[in-house]
Every structure is written in C-alpha cells, then in structure tokens.
C-alpha cells in the first residue's frame, strides 16, 4: 500500500470528489437521527424543562470546534515538516468550518444560558475560552488572507496554528482558574454522566453527524483551494474542460 499515493493534489482531488458527497449524505442521515432522538425520544429534563434540548447542538459544536483546531494544527504541522502543499491546503480547508462551529457553540451556549443562568453572556470558563478559540481561528484565517503567496501563507498559518495549539491548554486552565462558574462537566470521562441515556446517545449521534459534515465541508473546500491554487497545472485544465 503506497501511503503517499494520495498525497499530491492531483491524485487527491478525484478521491476527495468521490468521498465528499458520501460524507455529506452520511452527515444528513446521522443529524436527522440525532435530532429525532433529541426531540422525540429524550424526555423533558427535570430542572431545565425543554430548554436543555439545545445541548444536542451546543456540545457537539463545542467538541467539533476543539477537534477541528487540533486537526488544523495536525495538517499544519505535517505541511511544515514535509513541505507538502496538500497538507497546507487541508489546514486552510478546515479552518472556516472550525470557526463556524466555535461561533455556533458560543451562540447556542448563550441562548441556553439565558433560561438557565438568566443572562445572555456569562464570563464563565468554557464560554470565555471558546470565545478566545474563535479569535484564534480568526487570527489564522486573517493571517492567511493577508499573505498573497500561498506557500508562505500556508507556512505562516502553520506556525500560528502550532503556537495556538500549544496555548489552548494554557488558555483553558488560566480561564478556568480565573472563574469556575460553569457547572461541572456533565459528560466527563471520569465520573458517570448525570444525564439520561437517551440524552447522551442523542448528543453522541449528533456529534458524529457534525463530524461527517466537517469532513464533507473540508474536502469540498480543499477541492476549491486546489482548483484555485493549481491553476497552472494541466490536470486542472482537463478537469475544467471536462466539467464545462
């Protein structure tokens, strides 16, 4: 098995073209199942009534925002180490979707906070570090947008992403140390979840749905980036003519 068979844009482009739609369909099905579980199977919560149903997108979005930043840093690190163009493209392809989920986590978090904590925005550890994560995403995208030469943009973005990923735990713990208003992690690996089983499965299914969606979105955006950056190569020309 030649591992590097798909490491060049030319070979990866058709593969991504085939995979993206499948992941898109998979995402749609999983999200539909998750929403069904969330709204029609999970019972009303004792304390929060039905407001808690926001959890089915709030928590998956927060997970994805963290996970996608790590994926971005992984591709960035790979791109710096092996100087491969495709890795840099993948990092740039993941960033906007990550920023979208971070904003979504903040939006749903504050909409959930209003009925449960009484205010739209609370300077609590998780929301605050999520806000800083959003700034990190914007910093990455702004830096890449400000640099014309794509190769330098990838490498500069890679350095920033790696510096950012090193800082995320520091930011999280300093913010958490600063203010721990947020309720304890209801789904932490150590203690049993304090949530009903159906709530948990609904959230897990939605998390998978978001994950498939991110893959589909990242692959599609990577293809766009390849079309934009590889203008000079003839395989792009053939593709353009073929798909005319």
């Amino acid at each position: 098995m030649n591992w590097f068979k798909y490491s060049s844009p030319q070979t990866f482009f058709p593969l991504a073209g085939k995979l993206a739609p499948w992941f898109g369909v998979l995402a749609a099905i999983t999200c539909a199942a998750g929403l069904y579980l969330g709204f029609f199977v999970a019972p009303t919560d004792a304390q929060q009534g039905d407001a808690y149903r926001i959890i089915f997108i709030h928590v998956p979005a927060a997970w994805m925002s963290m996970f996608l930043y790590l994926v971005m840093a992984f591709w960035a690190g790979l791109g710096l180490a092996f100087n491969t163009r495709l890795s840099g493209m993948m990092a740039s392809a993941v960033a906007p979707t990550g920023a979208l989920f971070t904003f979504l986590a903040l939006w749903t978090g504050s909409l959930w906070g209003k009925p449960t904590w009484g205010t739209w925005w609370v300077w609590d550890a998780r929301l605050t570090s999520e806000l800083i994560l959003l700034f990190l995403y914007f910093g990455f995208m702004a830096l890449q947008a400000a640099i014309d030469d794509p190769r330098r943009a990838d490498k500069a973005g890679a350095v920033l992403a790696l510096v950012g990923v090193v800082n995320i735990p520091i930011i999280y713990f300093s913010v958490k140390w600063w203010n721990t208003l947020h309720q304890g992690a209801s789904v932490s690996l150590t203690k049993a979840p304090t949530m009903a089983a159906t709530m948990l499965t609904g959230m897990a299914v939605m998390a998978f749905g978001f994950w498939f969606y991110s893959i589909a979105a990242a692959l599609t955006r990577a293809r766009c980036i390849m079309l934009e950056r590889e203008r000079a190569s003839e395989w792009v020309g053939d593709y353009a003519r073929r798909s005319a």
Partner: protein
Amino acid sequence: MNWGSLDNFLAMGGYAFYVWGSYLVAFGLVSAEIVLLALRKRSALARLRLHGTAEGDR
C-alpha cells in the same frame, strides 16, 4: 417523548425562542456554508475557463 400536538412541540415547554433560536441559526449557518462552498467552486471553475490555465502560481 410524546408532544401531544404540533403546538406543544413548537412551544417547546415555553422555551421556544431559545431552542428554535439556536437550531434555526445553526441550520442557517450550515446551509450558508454549503451555498458559499458551491459558489466558490463555481467561480473557481469559471475563472479557469476564462483565463485558461496559462498563468497562475504553483
């Protein structure tokens, strides 16, 4: 979880604004991203056909 009627479902136990506020924005943003991606691909292809593949950076 039997909602009884559509109205109960929409009322969402009195938290309609917050729950549907979150879900509508989520659905809106995701579909916006999908539309933007499609537009970006189309414009990339259009630019390719327009300028051909002569110039461009590697």
